[in-house]
Each structure stands twice: as C-alpha cells, then as structure tokens.
C-alpha cells in the first residue's frame, strides 16, 4: 500500500503501515479527531463526562485515549482517515478512526475492526435505508448475522444464548456498532430519533453467528453471493419467540412458525411500509427435521410465507382498504412480505430446540451482505 504524503515542502511516496505507528505515536499524525482533556484513569468519572457530552449509552465507557486508539489501529493495517461510508441522519463521515474510537469506548477488540467496517459499510448502503431506520418512531435496529471462520476468531455466539446472554466479549462488537450509530450517524432518542419505545437491542445491538456446521442449508451470506467471512445486516423490530412442543414433522414446524408470524400490527402488514422482509432463526434440531421433510429451501420459505396469510376480513376496514389500494390483498389474505423469497432463514441457537425466533422487519430496508476483508498485508 502506498500513498502520497506531504511533509512540509517535500512530497514523497512512502510505503506506510500503521504498524509503524504504535501507541507512542509516529512521525505523521494520522489521527484528526478533536482532542478533549478529561479524567482518563477513572472509568466512572469518564463515563459521567462522556454521558454528559452525549457520547455514551449509560453503561461504563473506556476512555478513548490517543494511546488506546493508536494501539487499536496498530493491529489493523488501515488508514485512519479512510472514509468507509456516510451514516444518516447526520450524514457523518464514518472513518476508520471514528470506528476505532467508538470500538475502544465499547471495549471491542482490535481484531474486530474488519467486521465493524464491513457491517457499517453495509448499513451505509442507501438500499439499507438507515435514514428512515434511525429516525422512525419504531424500535427498529440493524441486526448483524456473521458467517465464516471469523465467528470462531472473534467468539461470535451462534449456539445457546446466541441472541443474548452467551458469555463472550463479542457483545462489545455489537455495542461498538451502536455507539457508531449514536456518535457518527447521530441517532439520539427524542433528538433525531422519534422512537416511541426504543429497544434493549439499541444498547448492545443484536449480533450473532449462524451455526453453519449444523445448518442443512448453505451459509446465509453464501446464499446471498458472499462466501467465507461475511456480515449481513437486517433492519429488525426485535425478537419474537415461537414455541412448539407438539410438532414432529417439518411441514408442521413451518406451519407453526408461519402462523405465529402473522399479526396485523407487524410492519409487514402495515400500509405505511411498502414491503418487508421476514427473518426467521431456526434451531439446529428443527432445521434437521425440516430439511429431511422439506429438502428445498425455497419450499421452506413458501410454506412459512403461505402460513403468514391473515384473512383480510380480520383486519379493520380502514386497514384493509389501504392494503387493497396497494394491491397487497392476495386471494383475500394479507402476507408478511410481498413474496416468499423475502422470508430469510438462518440456523442458530441451542440444541434444546423447541423454539424459533422471528425477527419482524422495519420494512423498506433491504438486507445487505458484505465480505469481511482484513486490511492489506504489511510491506
């Protein structure tokens, strides 16, 4: 990697590695963020100060000292001033430096930077519609699914308690994403976000892996064209549990899932949203049975989707009329998504089975998948 560097009047080409530029600093100051003099040895004092400045979520924050940020960056061969994307509604430039600062505050490891970059790049895609997601009255937040060997390297949970509660420092990665949304995208409740209730997920995020080794289907990202280490971001309203202690056959599980997902107050049935996706996490026990009985993933999507149909007569007349005007009543029924292909299936969770999780979508966000790319090699 080379870059033209201005040093006084002399302009020269130099191979630059941030590894040259460790915690003690270096000849060229790549860090451009404003510096603030604050208490740095006392986490609680810093957290109080940072919260007052609007930087935090209320939980303890690690002071992002220059040394800590430089050390974080020194383990990643990326230019600090590289702009990954702009994030609405503030349209702040999301640079590698800003990601590093927020990751340090959240307690995320330096090794998580490539994942953070990929996830934020995905969120910054206009088709993800982060603008509406960040400003809405809804409790929506970006959910991040991780695929590939990086799950093990970063201890991303994909088994028991993968959506929350598993013992892993990876929870700090989700929090780092949330802090970037707060500090770079500028999302703040009752300032730029009108979220009526918010969500617990807006603190630590929802970040989990797919249990690829137990999934009967190709990895989620691979089905979307990206092999290996990858992230997919999806705008979710939160988690919805579906219990089934009676079914024994694949179609029965799928019917139970589909019927549970269908309710008029879900965004997928709202005339305010033009379309929606519907993500479902299926535990590996059910996944095996479902795959045995319904081998085609397209058929799995179709069965779930068909069962999300709500009799239009159950809807309030004004609601039904608006959906009818949008041609969204099909054969007298309203469905959670426009097409079965928008039912997105991932396999994860513990081997106790018995539960699936539905992630109703905000609508209008189109799921984005990106490869997790390590920085260029040194040299």
């Amino acid at each position, binding site marked *: 990697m080379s870059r033209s560097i201005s040093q006084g009047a002399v302009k020269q080409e130099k191979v630059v590695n941030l590894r040259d530029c460790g915690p003690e600093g270096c000849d060229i100051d790549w*860090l451009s*963020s*404003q*510096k*603030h*003099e*604050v*208490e*740095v*040895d*006392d986490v609680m*004092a*810093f957290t109080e100060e940072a919260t007052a400045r*609007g*930087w935090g979520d209320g939980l303890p924050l690690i*002071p*992002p*000292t*220059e040394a800590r*940020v430089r050390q974080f960056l020194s383990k990643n061969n990326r230019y600090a001033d590289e702009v990954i994307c702009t994030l609405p*509604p*503030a*349209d*702040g430039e999301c*640079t590698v*430096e*800003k990601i590093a*600062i*927020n990751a340090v*505050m959240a307690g995320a490891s330096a090794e998580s930077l490539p994942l953070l970059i990929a996830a934020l790049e995905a969120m910054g895609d*206009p*088709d*993800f*519609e982060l*603008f*509406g997601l*960040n*400003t*809405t*009255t*809804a409790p929506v937040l970006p959910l991040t699914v991780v695929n590939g060997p990086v799950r093990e390297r970063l201890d991303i949970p994909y088994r028991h308690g993968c959506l929350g509660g598993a013992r892993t420092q990876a929870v700090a990665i989700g929090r780092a994403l949330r802090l970037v949304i707060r*500090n*770079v995208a*500028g999302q703040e409740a*009752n*300032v*730029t*976000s*009108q*979220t009526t209730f918010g969500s617990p997920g807006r603190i630590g995020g929802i970040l989990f892996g797919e249990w690829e080794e137990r999934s009967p289907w190709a990895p989620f990202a691979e089905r979307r064209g990206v092999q290996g280490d990858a992230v997919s971001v999806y705008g979710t309203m939160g988690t919805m549990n579906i219990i089934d202690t009676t079914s024994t056959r694949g179609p029965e599980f799928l019917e139970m899932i589909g019927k549970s997902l269908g309710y008029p107050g879900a965004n997928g049935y709202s*005339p*305010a*949203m*033009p*379309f929606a996706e519907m993500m479902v996490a299926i535990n590996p026990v059910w996944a095996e049975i479902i795959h045995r009985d319904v081998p085609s993933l397209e058929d799995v999507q179709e069965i779930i989707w068909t069962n999300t149909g709500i009799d239009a007569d159950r809807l309030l007349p004004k609601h039904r009329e608006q959906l009818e005007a*949008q041609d969204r009543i099909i054969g007298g029924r309203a469905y959670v998504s426009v097409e079965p292909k928008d039912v997105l299936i991932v396999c994860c969770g513990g081997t106790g089975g018995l539960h699936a999780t539905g992630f109703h979508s905000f*609508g*209008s*966000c*189109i799921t984005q998948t990106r490869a997790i790319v390590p920085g260029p090699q040194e040299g």
Partner: protein
Amino acid sequence: MAIGSVLDPTALRADDITSPGPEAGPLAGKTVGFRLDEIWRAWDWMAEIWGEEFRKAGAEVKMWRSHQGRTGAAGERVAAELDAFLESIDIAVVGLANCGSCTGWTVRDALAAAEKGLPTTAVCTEVFEELAHNLARRGGRSGLRLHVLPYPLNEKEHDEVAAVARAHFDGLLDAMGVGAAALKEAAV
C-alpha cells in the same frame, strides 16, 4: 485523578445554512407544488384545501405523491420522480412530518427542494417539530422554513381537518413568505 486527552467519537457535520432561503412572494402565475405521501389522509385533505386557496390567488397547483419505498428499484424511481417534480414547480410545500421516518423523508425532500433554490416550506405536526428542526440542522440547513400543525391530526375526521387547514392557512403563508395581505388582494 489523572487528566489526559481523549479523541472525540462524533462526526457531526459543521456546515450549516441558517437562512430560510428565498420567499415565495406573490403567487400569481407561479406553480406551487405539494409533496404528498401514502400515509396521512389528513395531509391530502389539507393540501386540497390550501391548493384551492392558491388557485384563487392565480397560482397553478401540482401534487406529487411520494412513495415510502426509498430503496432498490422503487427508490430510484421515487428519486427520479421527485427530481422531475421539483424541476416543474416554483414553490415547494413538503409534508407531512407526522411520524419519525416520514419526518425524516419530509425534511430530506424539503432539503432537496431548497438545494434547487426553490422557496421551500416543510410541514410538520407539533410533536415532530423538534425532530424536523434537528434533522434540518444535521442536513446542513437549520434555516429551513417549517410550518407546524396541531397533533394529533390524522385521527380527525374531514370536517375537523378542514377547520385546521383554515385556521393554519395564514400561518402557512407567513412561513412561505407569501404575505396574507398580498394573497387576499390577488384573490379579489
């Protein structure tokens, strides 16, 4: 206690246009464009009532309905339609900021109109006024003209909404920079 320096984690833009932009001025012979949406029927009713008043003052009125879908092929189509709509009008009235995401898109579309140099007024309900101001500021144009309606609005029946439209018409004219007296003279 040790004082040291930390790096600022925020990246909010510093540039800001505080001017409200050009006034709409006399309406005769101009085209006033209403940006509608797919959600708020009350906003449709208000636009019809206000539009009729503008016609009486000699203006042509155009309506364009935004689509909530701003992504994928639908999003590209909406963006192209918005651009064509803004090119076809002289004055923009953009609404309705009556929920979180629709306040976001109302302000964003209003900023697009203002960027084209059009006299532009965004319309919001009072619950969403602060959000609209904040988003306009973060969009780099804190001076964006804003007209505020009571809340709740969409929950009202047609006659009630019509009363709100009449009661807030002079306020709209002030926000647009028309001048109620000039409008009444033109209508005579």
